[in-house]
């Protein structure tokens, strides 16, 4: 080993506290990069492979009923590679062990497994036998949530008939990677919603759809124009009650996954960047100090003929040694967290394989970024070492010159000499103080943002399920019914109050822009479903006109007072102009609201309803659920409390990992910065502090002077950290904003409190470490040694 290398190893060991702090911060950056970047790549690859291998369709359309032969012209549309028809129907299920009724989505599949679109990936069991009538393949998420296994039986009301279904297989499908019902329910509830695949030969007659279909999916040839095909499909299918064809970008499961992948990509860039900037700052501060303390070593090296290049390389190697230790640790930790994260993703997203397999290039990139961090951090100090003429380096550093601080020039006489020392030291090296404050600010920001995101989610849930959806149960009928059904539902056991609603699928058009949505018709004076904006203000329904979500109004470019064209996608499919009465700034979905009678008039129908909202007596739920399971008119029952608790459970599980991890990471930044700052101050001012000890200052008083500087830096960083955290929440909320949902900007006091506690913990931990060093200060040596 060359002598310089031996020096290197000993120097690193000597500076081990600081070296460990720097290596840990780098490890956090590398770990978050390796975790998230590789997760992003894994998700992207899993999605792409799944879609290709299992032939996920490009265009989807649901309609009322079309004869099988009407698919012919669709297949003839230029650009269409394959078109497949099927029957899809939501039914009420009776699941063993589940009190409440669940919603099953029955999807017809060919009697024999073929190379069709949206192919099933069989996890267990077998494909259905063409002759056996009541066999179904259950979706994995639903089966798992309800502990269904091969041979389990379920009951469903299919077209008014109570039917027994036997699970023969468990599968997943590229259409339901994120398994939710869609429409208004964006929160997954795998216990109460599941997909069941059933033989077309069985399902079509059972639903009176023999020789007909109500869903068609299409794959495109390479280079086909999706928009053109959609337009032509709409022209072909409108007459069969089409709800409008749509591409993958509007397919709900795909949309959630694609949004998630995009978000992971953003996180994979932002979070590691924060850590690595802090790491570079730490390297910079520590190495500047190192070079200063080693002035005489540098002089000796140069005096004996070591070239500038050799001296520079020595210090660069030093920083690389520390950085690479962090890199290796970060890769290992990142890999571990990647595996944990993948298992959490697997709970939300059902892929055939979602393994966390970091690619070589992820590690390569992480390595290059680490190198860049270490070199950029050390550059200033190294160039100073190189530039130092040997003769000057022999002399001790020039004594520090000080001046009264700005605060003192304002004539604050209350300051004790100790406080003045602290303030003047800060003012003498403002950039160093700022850099330290910045790093601490970052760690606070990370905690605030992490908690803030969950606060936002919480607020969203609270707004949606406490303020807007005030019903206990929402019952959706399988088609529009007369108001009499409403009275029948109101008479069910346990129903305290009920309010009907009408939901109509429409295409809203303004000039050349259009969006598909559903108009929700509510009665005047409704109490179970309110229209509330994200600030909590309630809007009342106008007797005429329509209210739509602000985001929808922005997309369409329409303003209140202007006329919106409503193209109804069911029944007689009337097309009407309706005045936009107002907009509502909501967090979830792109909704449209009308007063129910106005909507009935627009539909040219009598008083029809699509379902009813119920407020129920919780003591009588059981018998109510039993009855609802058997009502032929009921298509779906959604129980609010069940949805909320199931969603919260899932969130809590993923929260514990991400919050736990980021809290540890944020503490590492804060401890790394505060400890390093105090450590540098201690080494720079050891003789000053020892002098104070000789003059009779106690250990505690000296520690106060030393840590006072770090305390001010830390305390000053707190409000900025809070502000930065809030600002980052706002930026993220804006970034994450989609038509599906908007994150509100909410940071609760408890989140700020957590950030505060973490920084305080870091500060106290660093203080304890440093005060032990003060205890071992060699006070006698300063009597002799100069510096």
């Amino acid at each position, binding site marked *: 080993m060359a002598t310089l290398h031996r020096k290197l190893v000993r120097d690193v060991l000597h500076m081990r506290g600081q070296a460990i702090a720097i290596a840990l911060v780098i490890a956090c950056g590398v770990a978050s990069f390796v975790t998230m970047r590789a997760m992003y790549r894994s998700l992207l690859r899993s999605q792409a492979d799944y879609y290709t291998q299992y032939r996920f369709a490009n265009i989807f359309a649901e309609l009322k009923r079309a004869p099988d032969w009407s698919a012919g012209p669709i297949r003839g549309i230029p650009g269409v590679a394959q078109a497949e028809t099927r029957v899809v129907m939501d039914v009420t299920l009776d699941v063993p062990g589940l009190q409440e009724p669940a919603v099953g989505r029955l999807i017809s599949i060919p009697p024999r497994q073929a190379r069709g679109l949206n192919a099933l990936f069989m996890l267990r069991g077998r494909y259905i036998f063409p002759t056996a009538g009541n066999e179904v393949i259950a979706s994995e998420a639903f089966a798992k949530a309800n502990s269904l296994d091969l041979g389990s039986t379920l009951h469903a009301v299919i077209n008014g008939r109570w039917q027994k279904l036997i699970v023969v297989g468990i599968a997943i499908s590229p259409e339901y990677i994120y398994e939710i019902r869609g429409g208004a329910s964006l929160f997954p509830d795998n216990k109460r919603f599941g997909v069941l695949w059933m033989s077309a030969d069985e399902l079509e007659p059972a639903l009176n759809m023999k020789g007909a279909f109500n869903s068609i999916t299409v794959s495109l040839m390479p280079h086909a124009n999706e928009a053109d095909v959609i337009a032509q499909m709409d022209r072909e299918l409108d007459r069969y009650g089409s709800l409008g064809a749509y591409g993958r970008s509007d397919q709900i499961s795909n949309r959630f996954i694609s949004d998630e992948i995009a978000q992971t990509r953003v996180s994979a860039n932002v979070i590691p960047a924060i850590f690595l900037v802090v790491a570079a700052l730490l390297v910079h501060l520590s190495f500047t100090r190192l070079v200063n303390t080693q002035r005489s070593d540098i002089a000796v090296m140069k005096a004996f003929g070591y070239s500038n290049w050799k001296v520079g390389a020595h210090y660069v190697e030093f920083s690389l040694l520390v950085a690479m230790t962090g890199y290796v640790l970060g890769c290992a930790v990142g890999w571990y967290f990647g595996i944990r994260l993948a298992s959490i993703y697997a709970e939300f997203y059902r892929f055939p394989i979602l393994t966390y397999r970091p690619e070589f290039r992820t590690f390569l990139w992480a390595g290059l970024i680490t190198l860049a961090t270490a070199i950029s951090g050390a550059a200033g100090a190294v160039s100073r070492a190189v530039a130092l003429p040997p003769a000057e380096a022999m002399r001790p550093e020039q*004594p520090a010159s000080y001046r009264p601080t700005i605060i003192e020039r304002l004539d604050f006489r209350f300051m004790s*000499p100790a406080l*003045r020392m602290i303030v003047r030291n800060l003012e003498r090296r403002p950039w160093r103080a700022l850099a330290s404050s910045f790093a601490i600010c970052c760690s606070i920001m990370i905690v605030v943002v992490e908690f803030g995101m969950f606060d936002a989610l919480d607020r969203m849930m609270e707004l949606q399920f406490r303020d807007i959806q005030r019903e206990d149960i929402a019952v959706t009928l399988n088609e529009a019914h007369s108001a009499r059904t409403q009275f029948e539902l109101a008479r069910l056991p346990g129903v305290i109050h009920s309010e009907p609603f009408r939901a109509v699928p429409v295409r809203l058009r303004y000039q050349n822009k259009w969006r598909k949505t559903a108009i929700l018709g509510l009665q005047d004076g409704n109490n179970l479903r309110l229209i509330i904006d994200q600030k909590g203000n309630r809007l009342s329904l106008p007797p005429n006109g329509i209210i739509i979500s602000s985001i929808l109004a922005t997309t369409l470019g329409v303003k209140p007072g202007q006329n919106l064209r409503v193209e109804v996608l069911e029944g007689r499919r009337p097309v009407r102009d309706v005045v936009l009465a107002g907009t509502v700034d909501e967090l979830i979905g792109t909704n449209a609201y009308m007063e129910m009678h106005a909507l009935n008039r627009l539909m040219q129908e009598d008083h029809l309803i699509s379902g009813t909202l119920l407020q129920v007596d919780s003591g009588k739920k059981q018998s109510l659920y039993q009855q609802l399971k058997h009502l032929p008119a009921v298509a779906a029952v959604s129980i609010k409390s069940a949805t909320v608790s199931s969603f919260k459970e899932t969130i809590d599980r993923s929260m514990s990992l991400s919050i736990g991890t980021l809290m540890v990471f944020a503490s590492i930044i804060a401890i790394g910065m505060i400890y390093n700052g105090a450590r540098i101050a201690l080494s720079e001012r050891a003789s*000053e502090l020892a002098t104070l000890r*000789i*003059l*009779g200052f106690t250990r505690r008083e000296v520690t106060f002077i030393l840590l006072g500087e770090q305390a001010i830096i830390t305390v000053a960083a707190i409000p900025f950290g809070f502000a930065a955290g809030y600002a980052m929440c706002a930026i993220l909320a804006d970034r994450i904003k989609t038509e599906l949902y908007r994150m509100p900007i909410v940071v609760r006091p408890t989140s700020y409190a957590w950030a505060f506690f973490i920084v305080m913990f870091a500060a106290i931990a660093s203080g304890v470490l440093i005060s032990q060093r003060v205890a071992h200060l060699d006070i*006698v040596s*300063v*009597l002799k040694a100069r510096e």
Partner: protein
Amino acid sequence: MIAALDNHAVCDSEVVFHMHGVSKSYKTDAIEVMALHSVELELKAGEFIVFLGPSGSGKSTLLNILGGLDRPTSGDVRFRDHWLSKSDDAGLTRFRREHVGFVFQFYNLIPSLTALENVMLVTEIAEDPMRPEEALQLVGLTERQNHFPAQLSGGEQQRVAIARAIAKKPDILLCDEPTGALDFPTAKLVLDVLRQINIELATLVAVITHNSAIAGMADRVIRLRSGEIVEITHNASKVLPEELSW
């Protein structure tokens, strides 16, 4: 004449420091270095003592023990009723805080504090200090009190250090090579300040040095070699600093 009178006065004053059988050894891995060996010594209030000796003679170790910076390996050290040899770290800190003033070879001023503030640093933690301005006046630095150390000459810095040391009205002023880093005229100026403090405040002043010329201004000169006291000389008449030469 005045010096002789002073000397006489000192002879009758109270013994404040008692050192009995004091030894100090430093152990490093394999070797044990004996820095002090069975030292017996008494110091009286108001005395001006010069410890003389070459490097390694043990004079710094002796000063460290007198100043409560270090404890002997064996033997007893007592300052009035303080048993320094038996004090813990906090006890020694209190002793230094209440009774000792230090002057260092390299001044050891706090660079971020002005001359006045360097003095205030000590007066704020002392029980019955003089006013910091007064201390600076005693060393003749009233004009320079708002200057930072970097703006002062070496001699001025050392005088600030002396002002800082005496401001608490210490019982003992320990000076470690106080003129070691100063030129000849400046050194004499600083020694004169020490002499004045000794007379005017009746402070026990102990100076360690390897400069034997300084010995002339002491009441007693204590010579050390290899950790032992080899000679104690009483000066019948003391020399004024301006008469010193080296």
